[in-house]
């Protein structure tokens, strides 16, 4: 029979109970602390808010004097003001925003952020990148580009997003470069950034996209196809169509088949039809069939008819959806 020392047990019991109490007290302390911090922050923000709001709601000649008041905020309060203004940039645009950007620039916000992009802490670098993106001034571009090869994946991600906000088409190639294997930056981030840039100026984005569509790396091609489709970059349409059949990666072929729903026209139908061939990858066949279905023209739907007897049940289902009104050979009721 196991013999346990009385004292050890009582001690352990006491210590455990004390630890439990400590944890509970810590929980309470965290809650209280959060409340205290929030109130303190609110007290500071309350001083800054009216001034910034005055700028944001100002009309015409009211803007300049209101900006002066913000610019004149004393140094101890400035960090709060800066944070508040930057937070507002998420939601506000227009001349009031531009005016506030100038106030920030004059006060050195951009310079400080650019300097912080070399900080030791990844969180600080990421925050710096975010600020540069929000300020949206071209002077910050170089430091952000540098961060695209930062050791921390979070920083790279924020840098990619910030580049999208800066809206400079010349960085498109760099953004796509951020998709290289090992870089870990999610393709969706780069894609969104490119779309943001492209919305402002689609033609300037074309060269980079065209280059990316022929890139060695699968993910780059994939992203380029998706972006081209989203922005309706028609000059790339034929090339995208060519990708449907000839790209070595099935994932890219799928994306290209989907892209043709937006980029394609009557000319794309034969390509899509070929992509439904039984020798093709099932995912690609499905994507091509769905695009044909979405197109909905009689020619497109006609190419779905032979799929009614296909071995793949998903394709049979799509073919059925095309409707019984097709003229097909041997299609029963």
């Amino acid at each position, binding site marked *: 029979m196991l013999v346990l020392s009385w004292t050890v047990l009582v001690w352990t019991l006491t210590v455990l109970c004390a630890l439990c109490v400590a944890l509970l007290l810590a929980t309470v302390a965290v809650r209280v602390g959060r409340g205290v911090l929030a109130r303190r922050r609110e007290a500071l923000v309350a001083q800054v808010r009216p001034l910034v*709001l005055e700028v*944001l*709601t100002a009309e015409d000649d009211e803007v300049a004097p209101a900006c002066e008041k913000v610019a004149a905020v004393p140094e101890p309060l400035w960090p709060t003001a800066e944070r508040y203004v930057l*937070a507002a940039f998420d*939601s*506000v645009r*227009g*001349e*009031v925003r531009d005016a506030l950007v100038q106030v920030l620039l004059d006060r050195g916000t951009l310079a400080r952020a650019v300097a912080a992009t070399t900080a030791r802490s990844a969180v600080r670098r990421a925050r710096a990148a975010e600020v540069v993106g929000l300020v949206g001034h071209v002077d910050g571009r170089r430091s952000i580009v540098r961060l695209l090869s930062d050791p921390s994946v979070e920083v790279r991600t924020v840098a990619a997003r910030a580049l999208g906000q800066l809206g400079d088409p010349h960085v498109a190639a760099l953004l796509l470069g951020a998709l290289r294997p090992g870089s870990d930056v999610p393709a969706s981030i780069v894609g969104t950034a490119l779309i943001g840039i492209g919305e402002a100026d689609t033609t300037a984005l074309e060269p980079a996209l065209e280059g990316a569509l022929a890139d060695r790396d699968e993910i780059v091609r994939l992203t380029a196809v998706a972006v081209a489709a989203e922005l309706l970059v028609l000059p790339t349409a034929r090339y995208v169509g060519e990708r449907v059949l000839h790209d070595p990666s099935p994932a890219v072929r799928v994306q290209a088949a989907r892209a043709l729903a937006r980029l394609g026209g009557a000319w794309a139908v034969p390509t899509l039809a070929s992509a439904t061939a039984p020798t093709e990858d099932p995912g690609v066949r499905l994507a091509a069939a769905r695009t044909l279905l979405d197109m909905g023209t009689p020619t497109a739907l006609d190419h779905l008819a032979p799929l009614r007897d296909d071995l793949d049940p998903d394709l049979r289902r799509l073919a059925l959806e095309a409707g019984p009104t097709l003229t097909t050979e041997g299609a029963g009721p």
Partner: protein
Amino acid sequence: MTQGKVLVVDDNQDICDLVALKLSNAGFEVTQANDGLSGLELGLSGDFDLVVLDVMMPGMSGIDVLRRLRDAEQTATTPVLLLTAKTQERDVETGFAAGAGEYMTKPFSPRELLVRVKAMLARRQP
């Protein structure tokens, strides 16, 4: 003489304050709400001329609130301006299907918001 009663619903207090201030500077009587539920409750009871509604809110989103406003007789035709982050075909469709009158994306220009609000009220469009 007030230009009209407007309800502003946004979970971001600062945006809420901004819109409220812009509109009240222009002569509107503004009520604010910070979440979908209180926005809905105020909207149903308050007899507003227009509602500015943020879509992206936790708990009850702007679309949820809009639907319930449209379901209720007293707010079935109240003009509603939806605020959302970035154009998104889907949001627009859902928004209009749910009964929004107009749609603005964030980041938005406060001046443009005021212009839209005035235009909507002038048209009295739901």
